[in-house]
């Protein structure tokens, strides 16, 4: 339904965007107090194209009030098209990280074979370089980041690398990324709106060197199967605590009903 909107070249993620956008925005509407300003809409920002007149034009009426419902759908319906999409720079999610770490930015259209081909070569080190004994097996760390629909692909890349390289320490961070979109009226071409929306993003640090195990989101190497047992051990305590507080109702009722059933079965048999 969005194909009617013109797309500026380089916006290759556009066509698939609306869906995650909707999903993202729905919860945000509920949390306006917290993520204040993320959905606010501005008119006639100075980001307008050079050729645009600087005159302030009022956008068509339903869009003028500030608390606008999900922008993507609304804008598309109102004949707006997206002219610009920029991700705001956010600080590195891994504070003490060296500056030269390879960062793989996974996009929705990225091919896993391309990403992995590049990243694996860097992590394993070029064959001739390791022959010289200089690099000693390539880089020590790599970061995979992706947002929106690319999150799944990002995780997949990290999982493949863990499997191929082996004994990698992992640190996973989740957060919202702020994306600024500039929308332009298709009808007049004179009014613009800037939409700030938040997109969930993931950053995965894979390291050959040990990382801080206390950091939330840390995963030691080779947790393929150990993940569950370890977690179960941790959470068994909290589970028993909850059983004590909430358990009695369901747990007492179940055995009781079973006994009733048994009693029925027994009582049926004797007459035969």
């Amino acid at each position, binding site marked *: 339904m969005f194909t009617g909107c013109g797309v500026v070249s380089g916006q290759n993620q556009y066509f698939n965007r609306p869906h995650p956008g909707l999903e993202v925005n729905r*919860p945000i509407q509920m949390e306006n107090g*917290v993520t204040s300003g993320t959905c606010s809409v501005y008119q006639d920002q100075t980001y307008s194209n050079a050729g645009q007149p600087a005159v302030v034009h009022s956008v068509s009426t339903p869009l003028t009030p500030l608390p606008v419902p999900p922008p993507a759908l609304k804008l598309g319906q109102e004949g707006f098209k997206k002219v610009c999409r920029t991700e705001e720079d956010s600080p590195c999610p891994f504070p003490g990280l060296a500056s030269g770490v390879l960062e793989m930015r996974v996009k929705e259209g990225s091919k896993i074979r391309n990403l992995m081909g590049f990243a694996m070569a860097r992590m394993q080190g070029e064959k001739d370089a390791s022959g010289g004994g200089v690099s000693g097996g390539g880089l020590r760390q790599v970061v995979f980041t992706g947002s929106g629909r690319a999150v*799944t692909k990002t995780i997949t890349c*990290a999982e493949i690398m863990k499997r191929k390289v082996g004994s990698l320490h992992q640190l996973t961070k989740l957060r919202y990324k702020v994306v600024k979109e500039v929308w332009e009226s298709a009808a007049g071409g004179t009014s613009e709106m800037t939409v700030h929306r938040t997109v969930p993003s993931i950053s995965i640090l894979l390291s050959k060197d040990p990382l801080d195990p206390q950091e939330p989101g840390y995963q030691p190497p080779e947790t393929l199967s150990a993940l569950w047992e370890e977690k179960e051990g941790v959470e068994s305590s909290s589970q028993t605590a909850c059983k004590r507080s*909430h358990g009695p109702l369901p747990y007492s009722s179940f055995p009781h009903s079973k006994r009733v059933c048994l009693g029925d079965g027994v009582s049926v048999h004797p007459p035969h």
Partner: protein
Amino acid sequence: MTEPRNPGMSSIPQAAPVHTDSTSPAVEMDPVEYTLRKRLPRKLPKRRNDVYVNMKTDFRAQLARCQKLLEGGGHREICVHGLGLAINRAINIALQLQASSQGVLQLAANTSTVELVDDLEPEDPDEAGEPMTRTRNNSAIHIKVFYPDPQ
């Protein structure tokens, strides 16, 4: 979904030697029609504070369920799991929980690979097709949402 089709498909020639031609996987499948049945993921722990996010249930309902567990249910931590496409939603839920707690809640995300099994059943029993299985991998995320310092 986007994950390797080819590794899985490569096992097919061994199971059904009829199709050993080196054509593309899609063509290989043609001679006998199969019904693809996706088995459910391998059994996973289901505690009271585990939330398995899916794409069928309404997002707000799943978010509300998590909020209930944390606020009314007296849990110090819950574990939100998402597989494949539901990863996004799981992350969204976790981030929403964190945001609505004014940043008190913390997130600890772990990722994993889940092996999934598909059954291939021949459509027409008269033809020479044999039932096959095919395994593929999908990514999953497990987000622990917790109040720090549980004392």
